């Protein structure tokens, strides 16, 4: 705990000092990133120490903060979520030093202040033991990330930023209502009692925290805001910030007692819908970072599905399903921080090297950028849930929970997860294949250069994390036991017996993975030996005898995804522009497709248009004359006075 407090102090100090440097970019970077890295490492150490605690460590500042109290605490649940925040915070800070050097930003100091405050605010969200403190940290997190989105300087950053700000505040409104109902006048978490309003509280939390996490249909801000931010901030937002929503849901569950069955059903349904919607949208994107943002929506769906299984098991008293569902959700949360962080950082390197985020202008980058390419390949396989990487361990636990649950729920969960997994494999094969393989589709891609050390190191560390967590096997499961105990109040000695079977399965999976790696190595060696003394020629790709293949003849991302987007036409709308070939000898033809989000265009745009029209009748209030405004003030004061009398 003291380590985490020190981390908060170092983060804030680093940010403030960086801000004082103003435009002196190298000073700002050194102080800001230095603070973030030192704070991140300190905090990670503190979080690791907190993981195994059976009793929460409480620090009561004793101070009254407006309506709340300065009470912080550290229990395994908070520690588990704080760990990736600190780890990814330190790595993205290092990356940010290299990234911002080539990025057009006016005030480096300000960017670093917001970045450090964002990390500190996320940490405080996990540590807060008072709803006022929690909401304050929540708001600081929102505002700093909004400012960082706006600082990205991307086209459309304004629209993205405002969409984000509005969406997240609608969510916060629900959270305030939830905390007011929950506390009944009190703000300390220890005084919370749900009573008979548990169902209502759960729905409020689902809307409030679901908006942050990016659940369907309130995910619409996510694919706007995450791509617009600088890449290291995108990594932080997608990798850990949206998980504060998952944390909030879990924290709320600790107050509500045994959940009702329909909560689990609702979570499973929402999770499956979000997962499927997210991955189909991801397939249709040809903006690299938008693809990754939609994939975050998909992964939040998977986490929610697992959470739903856990809640369902909890409500029916099935300890095994409960423990495995929650463990799957927690492990996938941790894993997603690793591979989504890796992929967003990789996307930043690619975008800087090629000057574009359009998949269809890339290609052949593996030869130019072998480091980034290999790391991104690991991330792509990991996020698709493929062994030997970490994604598989998490999804395995979720499958196992569904198997143990059985019945229609289990079948729906298994089929849905398998479909989402298969589509994710297609989407990430597309991402890696179109960006890194084949021939360059533009001159920028042809001349791209691999990143420098500061950008490469975080990528390598995160890729190594994907491999190591994949090999950790049962350790990852046992790590979750104290957290599950914190959330559900089930004693560890009841959890150990039901987790024995999946734990031994994970051990066997590690064996199988080791066998796979050995076999692959041996086979590769054999092929190499066989070819050692033989003629190995370099030729042309076979193109039906056509010897002048052109890069433009390759399949593009849009053409690769077309069969699947056509199959799921209800979930993604493609707008087509261009002119079709006409006549016997068509001279020109063109086609451009642009994916659209039916949730945004079909739901929120009309909704807010309607709100705007509804507000139009208030325009007469805004006269532009000072006299009227003074009149308003006087009338308001008068009304208030009368009301108080």
């Amino acid at each position, binding site marked *: 705990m003291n380590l985490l407090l020190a981390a908060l102090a170092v983060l804030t100090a680093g940010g403030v000092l960086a801000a004082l440097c103003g435009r002196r970019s190298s000073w700002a970077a050194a102080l800001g990133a230095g603070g973030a890295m030192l704070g991140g490492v300190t905090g990670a150490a503190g979080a690791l120490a907190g993981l195994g605690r059976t009793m929460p460590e409480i620090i009561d500042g004793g101070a009254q903060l407006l309506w709340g109290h300065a009470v912080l605490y550290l229990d395994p649940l908070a520690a588990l979520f704080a760990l990736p925040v600190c780890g990814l915070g330190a790595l993205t800070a290092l990356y940010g030093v290299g990234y911002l050097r080539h990025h057009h930003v006016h005030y480096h100091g300000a960017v670093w202040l917001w970045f450090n405050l964002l990390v500190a605010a996320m940490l405080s969200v996990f540590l807060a033991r008072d709803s006022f403190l929690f909401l304050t940290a929540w708001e600081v997190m929102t505002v700093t990330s909004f400012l960082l989105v706006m600082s990205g300087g991307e086209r459309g950053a304004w629209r993205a930023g405002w969409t984000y700000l509005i969406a997240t505040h609608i969510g916060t409104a629900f959270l305030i209502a939830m905390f007011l109902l929950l506390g009944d006048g009190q703000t300390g978490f220890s005084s919370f009692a749900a009573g008979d309003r548990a169902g209502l509280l759960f729905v409020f939390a689902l809307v409030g925290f679901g908006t942050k996490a990016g659940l369907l249909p309130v995910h619409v801000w996510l694919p706007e805001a995450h791509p617009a931010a600088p890449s290291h901030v995108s990594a932080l937002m997608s990798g850990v910030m949206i998980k504060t929503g998952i944390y909030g849901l879990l924290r709320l569950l600790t107050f509500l007692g045994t959940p009702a069955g329909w909560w689990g059903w609702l979570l499973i349904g929402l999770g499956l819908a979000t997962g499927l919607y997210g991955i189909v949208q991801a397939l249709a994107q040809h903006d690299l970072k938008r693809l990754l943002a939609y994939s975050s929506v998909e992964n939040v769906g998977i986490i929610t599905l697992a959470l739903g299984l856990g809640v369902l098991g909890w409500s029916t008293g099935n300890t095994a399903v409960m423990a495995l569902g929650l463990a799957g959700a927690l492990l996938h949360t941790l894993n997603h921080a690793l591979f989504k962080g890796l992929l967003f950082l990789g996307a930043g390197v690619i975008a800087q090297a090629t000057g574009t985020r359009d998949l269809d202008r890339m290609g052949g980058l*593996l*030869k130019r950028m072998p480091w980034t390419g290999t790391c991104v*390949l690991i991330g792509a396989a990991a996020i*698709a849930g493929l*062994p030997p990487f970490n994604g*598989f361990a998490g999804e*395995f636990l979720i*499958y*196992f929970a569904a*198997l143990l649950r059985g019945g*229609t729920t289990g*079948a729906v969960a*298994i*089929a849905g997860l*398998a*479909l989402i997994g*298969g*589509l994710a*494999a*297609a989407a*990430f*094969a597309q991402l890696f*294949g179109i960006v*890194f*393989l*084949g*021939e360059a589709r533009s001159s920028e891609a042809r001349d791209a250069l691999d990143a420098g050390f500061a950008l490469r190191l975080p990528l390598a560390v995160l890729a190594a994390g994907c491999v190591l967590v994949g090999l950790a096997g049962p350790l990852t499961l046992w790590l979750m036991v104290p957290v599950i105990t914190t959330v559900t109040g089930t004693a560890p000695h009841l959890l150990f017996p039901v987790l024995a*079977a*999946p734990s*031994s*399965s994970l051990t*066997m999976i590690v064996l*199988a993975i080791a*066998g*796979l790696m050995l*076999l*692959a190595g041996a*086979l*590769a060696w054999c*092929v190499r030996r*066989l*070819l050692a003394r*033989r003629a*190995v*020629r*370099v*030729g042309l*790709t*076979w*193109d*039906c005898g056509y010897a002048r293949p052109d890069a433009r*003849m*390759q*399949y593009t991302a849009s*053409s*690769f*995804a077309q*069969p*699947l987007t056509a*199959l799921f036409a209800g979930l993604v709308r493609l707008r087509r522009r261009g002119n079709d070939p006409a006549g016997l000898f068509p001279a020109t033809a063109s086609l451009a497709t642009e994916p659209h989000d039916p949730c945004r265009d079909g739901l929120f745009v009309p909704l807010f248009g309607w709100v705007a029209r509804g507000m139009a009748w208030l325009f007469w209030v805004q006269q532009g004359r000072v006299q009227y405004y003074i009149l308003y003030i006087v009338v308001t004061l008068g009304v208030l006075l009368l009301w108080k009398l």
Partner: protein
Amino acid sequence: MNGPELLARFTAALLPLVCAPALLGIINRTKAVFAGRVGAPLLQPYYDIFKLLRKGAVYSGTTTWVLRAGPVIGVATTLVALACLPLAGLPAPLSFAGDFILVAYLLGLGRFMTINAALDTGSAFCGMGASREAQFGALAEPALLLALAGLAWLTGQWSLSGIYAALSYETWSVAAPALGLITVTLLAVLLTENSRIPVDDPNTHLELTMIHEVMVLDHSGPDFALVEYGAALKLWLTGVLLTGVAVPALTGNPWVNMLLALAALFALAVAIGCIESMMARLRLHKVPQFIAGAGALAAMALLLALEH
């Protein structure tokens, strides 16, 4: 575990490595007989593989190490998946609760690398094949996992070895409709995963219409030998998943059971040959319906199984 049983298990584990290519030979011979031709020798796939192993290689200048990794990962994943696969009621070398999830995902990893190896060539045809493979693979995965989960729930076992040891003619007499539907699902998955008619035509000569064959056009020499061998192993894997349900272990003698299982596999190969001779491939946009239909059958099987 006594000596003879150990020997039987050892043989069962090695059998696919030796016998898998024979399945391809049988399919081709069946098709030849149907067409009134003499056909290639039954052992032709072995000759092909050995011939390819003795050759040099040609790589496209566009490609990277990903192209070479494709066949290697493809064979390695199938071999590890085979280690989880029981034969004729004999437990597999690697058996644990939920191992079929690993098997499905290992096949997924193999497919992921094959798709990337295809995209590595930069050819429009390879891209086309990769795109189709990605689509059909994504749809086949739920069908396969649903079918296997259904078997797990029917038998109350969580590992492939346990499931297939628990299946017997008694299970069939109790749950024939569910098992029948699962068998059909597994057949559809087999035809999809192994790129056979009606999903893909392994004998087509037009690159535009190929799926699997076009993805491996740029492999040559030992790499291509691995591709061919991997395809044979995958056919064996999906075949055993199917015949293990359709023809459970009959007798108490492992050797007789093994012979029966081999006979069932060869009969399956003949059946695939018959299907390929009598059907045309489906139009491409009909294929998703075929696979989704297989998934729906598995779902129906589950509903029936849940009744019990």
